[in-house]
């Protein structure tokens, strides 16, 4: 199927069609996989009517015969992948994370994991990164669902460099892999070279001594910026570790890092039950490390709003993370189930943003 885009005859420079103002990136998960497919005849790809949205479009453009367009049918897409893999292919199937992980969980569990086949599921737009699309499009429980499935590998790249490193680092694994990607291609960079990200080994992004911040995927750049701000002000010396390999969980490496700090803060674009923090707490308990660990993430279905506003509202941007880390340092509360990003913080952000929104576009009336 040829994937071509027509241009619209428009007059205003602010208008944009589905590909957005910035156009389509020259390098994306699609071009990374297409490069891999040039070298490796096993590589295939597919999507469920989100080829463009998940930044896979370069793959069908370069390898049309090795691409599956399933239409809007995620479970079928991932079932087809299992059939392909049982015949020797290594298929990479992409859709939004909410549909890849939870709508299709039974297919991943029975047809990828139970069979231990080399299917690669790529879930993009994880966490609350879909913003005002709402809870149907948020994936804030996917780690919790996926981390319990035997045989399944789960990785969460922080940027496109990490995505390439983890795709290449897992290409020969005999079993299934789930990729948890932020918004697909865009977002701030964390890494310069793929050698910085090694599958299975957490990457220390900033080295400090006071508090260990554990992050993964879309929150890594914000955690890094928070650490830089705290250090620049002379407030705290913070280590940031990118836990890009979520399953199998590198328990010993996390425990060793935690033991070198006063406290651990786990930042997650996910509900705190069953997410990254749960794995960290389990590892610390299992390996008898007595350092307090705090989970900083979501506690409920998210409210609606533009993505950047939502990250700010939930304290998951650099400023919020820095605030939480400082509170851990100042208060060290004994009850670690009490969120350190509080109702008052959220109310403040909401009030500030709503005041700003009230001034927008006064000429528009809906009556």
């Amino acid at each position: 199927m040829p994937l071509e885009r027509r241009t619209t005859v428009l007059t205003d420079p602010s208008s944009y069609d589905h590909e957005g103002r910035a156009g389509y990136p020259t390098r994306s998960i699609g071009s990374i996989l297409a490069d891999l497919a040039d070298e490796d005849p096993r590589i295939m790809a597919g999507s469920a009517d989100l080829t463009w949205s998940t930044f896979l479009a370069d793959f069908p453009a370069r390898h049309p015969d090795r691409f599956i367009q399933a239409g809007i049918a995620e479970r079928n897409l991932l079932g087809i992948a299992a059939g392909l893999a049982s015949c020797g292919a290594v298929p990479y199937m992409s859709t939004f994370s909410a549909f890849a992980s939870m709508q299709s969980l039974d297919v991943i569990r029975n047809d990828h994991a139970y069979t231990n086949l080399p299917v690669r599921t790529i879930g993009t737009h994880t966490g609350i990164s879909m913003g005002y699309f709402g809870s149907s499009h948020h994936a804030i429980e996917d780690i919790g669902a996926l981390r319990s499935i035997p045989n399944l590998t789960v990785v969460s790249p922080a940027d496109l460099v990490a995505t390439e490193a983890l795709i290449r680092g897992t290409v020969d694994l005999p079993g299934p892999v789930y990729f948890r990607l932020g918004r697909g291609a865009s977002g701030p960079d964390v890494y310069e070279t793929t050698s910085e990200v090694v599958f299975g080994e957490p990457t220390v992004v900033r080295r400090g001594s006071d508090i260990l911040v554990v992050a993964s995927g879309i929150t890594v750049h914000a955690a890094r910026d928070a650490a830089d701000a705290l250090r620049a002000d002379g407030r705290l010396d913070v280590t940031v570790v990118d836990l890009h390999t979520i399953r199998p969980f590198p328990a010993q490496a996390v425990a060793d890092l935690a033991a070198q700090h006063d406290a651990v803060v786990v930042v997650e674009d996910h509900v705190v039950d069953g997410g990254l923090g749960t794995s960290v707490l389990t590892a610390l308990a299992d390996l008898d490390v007595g350092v307090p660990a705090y989970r900083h993430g979501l506690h409920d279905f998210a409210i609606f709003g533009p993505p950047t506003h939502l990250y700010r509202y939930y304290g998951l941007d650099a400023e919020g993370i820095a605030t939480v880390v400082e509170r851990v340092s100042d208060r060290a509360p004994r009850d670690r189930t009490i969120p350190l990003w509080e109702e008052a913080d959220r109310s403040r952000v909401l009030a500030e943003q709503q005041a700003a929104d009230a001034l927008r576009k006064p000429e528009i009336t809906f009556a």
Partner: protein
Amino acid sequence: MSIDTPTRPPRGASPTRSREAFAAHIRRTVLLEAEIAGSGHYGPSLSCADLLAALYSGFLRVDPADADRLDRDRLVLSKGHACSALYAVLADLGFFPAEELRTYTRLGTAYGDHPDMKKVAGIDFSSGALGHGLSIAVGMAVHARLRGDGARTVAIVGDGELNEGQIWEAAGYAGANRLSGLLAIVDVNTVCVDGTTREVLDYEPIGDKWAAFGWAVERIDGHDADAIDAALARFEARHAAGGAPTVLVADTVAGKGIPAIEGMAEWHIGYLGGSDLATALEQLGTRVEEPTDDHAAPRPIATEEGH
């Protein structure tokens, strides 16, 4: 079975505008919501505007003053990404003040880009993940039959959404159980996200597939008000007789009403700014009229008293 019991909501919670102006008002609101958000689902919202205008011009028994009453008719917008059009309808009928749409998609709003039944009065079920809605509507239709109050259930699904297997699980159940009070409307706007439905995954002949699952099938022009009304009337008659569920396979145009983007998959989501928005509003403008103070009389429906 009598369905005109005194407890039923009044037929025809009605828009404040004439039918043609109502549809134009829906389209105008979709454009303005997109202007607030900086992005909009133009294609799929504009394609179903005339269908929504028909359903909410006196056909659906809903009561904005008592939005949650059990015996109301229900609409499941399974293609939830078109809800900017449904918000326009619900505001006009008085479920909530239209000016609340100024918060559309902004932080803390009730009005996201997919509808939330817990936040917005008049939304009968939350949607956004495709393929779920028809099963929900089957559940509502089964309950209505158990209650025996004659309430009807409508599900609007996209033609691309027919790719989802669960749609056919629900279709099979409804057909086998002769759920006459269930009306599915397939908004056949012929585009998905990656391209046309023909390019992505061709599901034609759509009507034959529903017929095979035991549904009464009608193919109509989804922008022709008279054709939609007539088909709704025939659904009512079928429901009164207690037969098969009905599906309207409605041929529509994605982005209908905005010539620059009509029929284009590229405009599933996008943004018409500045002069392009002005042009689009102008093109709708001749058909947008001011609301009347009191609600316009509902359009008569042929089978109004026919039960």
